């Protein structure tokens, strides 16, 4: 990856975080932690790797994205708006009456959302079904799937994992947002699941583990996945819940937070400074 490309994607990630904070501020509260942790992944996907066209939402050969941790909707909406799927000013309607941007991803409401999610675990199976269906239809696109580490508690995840490996769905590229936290606290204290890559490897997947806050590392891992045939791909992203906003990342409980004006101001100042720094580096 060139230095320019890396800077561009890092800037995109900061823009996603800015818009995520703004939309949650407009409502006053929301799932900030788990939205911020996937911003760098979304920057790589929507900023570079996805074969999509915002003007052709129903293009059958497009790459599809299933965000099974549906509560990360606000980050996805930010990425979609910045990518031109709908106007940026929609973002301020998050969770308002009549909105097209509900807290959990809803494909019947939001342009660019391929699958409705929110009941954890279910998006893994629907992504597997999409990948199988696309392959049966002879399409050469890929399906990208985002799963939470707490979400891995759901047995359905592992049922789908078995099926995907058995049918060698190598058009499926999945990510676990390994931020180490779920709703009630650290995953380690609730249902410890060491060695996630090893577990998926044992299920027959190609498994990698990378710094999920590093756009270049994510990009490299996805390209490695592309180059491997015959197995579904798991990329475990080592992340921080609330990444990019120090005050949110350092809260013990940051799954669903009240976005006070003071907190939003601090977050936006930090993100603006980061964007400035990247732009200076670019120049």
């Amino acid at each position, binding site marked *: 990856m060139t230095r320019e490309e890396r800077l561009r994607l890092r800037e995109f990630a900061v823009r996603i975080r800015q818009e995520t904070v703004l939309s949650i501020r407009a*409502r006053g509260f929301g799932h900030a932690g788990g939205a911020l942790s996937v911003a760098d992944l979304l920057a790589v996907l929507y900023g570079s790797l996805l074969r999509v066209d915002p003007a052709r939402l129903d293009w059958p050969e497009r790459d599809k994205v299933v965000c099974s941790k*549906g509560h990360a909707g606000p980050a996805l909406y930010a990425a979609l708006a910045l990518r031109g799927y709908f106007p940026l000013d929609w973002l301020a309607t998050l969770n308002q*009456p*009549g909105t097209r941007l509900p807290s959990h991803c*809803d494909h019947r409401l939001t342009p660019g959302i391929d699958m409705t999610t929110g*009941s954890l675990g279910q998006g893994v199976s629907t992504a597997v079904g999409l990948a199988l269906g696309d392959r049966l239809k002879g399409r050469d696109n890929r399906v990208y799937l985002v799963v939470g580490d707490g979400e891995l*508690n759901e047995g359905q995840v592992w049922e789908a994992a078995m099926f995907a490996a058995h049918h060698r769905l190598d058009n499926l590229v999945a990510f676990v947002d390994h931020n180490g936290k779920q*709703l009630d*606290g650290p995953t380690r204290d609730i*249902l410890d699941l060491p060695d996630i890559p090893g577990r998926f490897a044992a299920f027959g997947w190609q498994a990698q583990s990378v710094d999920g806050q590093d756009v270049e590392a994510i990009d490299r891992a996805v390209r490695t996945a592309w180059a491997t045939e015959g197995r579904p791909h798991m990329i475990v992203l080592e992340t921080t819940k609330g990444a990019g906003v120090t005050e949110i990342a350092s809260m013990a409980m940051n799954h669903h937070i009240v976005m006070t004006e003071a907190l939003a101001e601090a977050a936006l100042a930090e993100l603006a400074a980061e964007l400035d720094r990247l732009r200076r580096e670019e120049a």
Partner: protein
Amino acid sequence: MTVRIGYTGRTDGVALRDVFARVLARIGEDPDFVYLDADLMSSVGTRDWALAHPDKAFNMGVAEADMMGVAAGLAAAGFRPLVQTFGPFASRRCFDQVFLSVAYSGRDLTVIGTDPGVTAAFNGGTHMPFEDMALYRAIPGATVLDMADAVQLEAVLPLAYRQAGLKYIRFGRKPVLPVYASGSTFDIGRAPCLREGRDATIVASGLLVAESLAAADRLAAEGLSVTVLDAFCIKPLDGEAILAWAGRTGALVTAENHNVIGGLGSAVAELLAEHGPCPLERVGVREAFGEVGPQDYLQRRFGLTADDVADAVRRVVLRKAGAAAGQ
């Protein structure tokens, strides 16, 4: 059962999650008590108690189907489990496990489904159960309870917990309009009468009880006098009270924060069809999935306000008059 009315039309600011956590700690003194939750302890205010009682409280992670099965196993081992998660995940997400491992197998289990219907508000359509009572009602022997306020929850939860079999209890976590004064007592299976009138009877549950009292006030100003029953126990339904008031007032309205299919409206319609019909209007959700937004918006959106109840009463009273004129 002795109830005193505490309805003022204003909230008392008591969050039902706090009541739940308090009652949980109290019934938690039972040596056979065990509490399971699916990664929503902090949402329902029980996390501190759970952390302090690691041999009585288990966080199952985001794994509702497993939670129900483990609860069934604990019941088989001689415990009296209570499980909690959001309503959709306590019903749809694990229905077969509840049905077979718990109910069919004759195990005792108390299931708490929080944030029913529109009280799921900002969590949106995926989290908004309008069918949880319908699912539990269909299970043989299940008890299905829809809580109207904090006083009722505090009194009924220990009763339900001690009762045998499968019990499903739904309530929102936030403060609601109080219906009862403290000290009120309840019997599972009996519907308290909150107000007596001549022209029609409203049979309400949960969130719609306070709305129905507000509707009754408005209708009284128009010269319509209505009875309000709190059918907090959807199953077993207090058929005796409902049929008696149907006979006295000759017109019924049901009101629930739930789909009209399978919940209170269905239960009352089935009762009337079998035991002597009278005009019935049903206030509830019709052929709609949930959606995201503030609760007051959603109540308007799905027709679950005092105005909707009052309109239904006006309609049913007209139908009664029409039927009388036709005779």
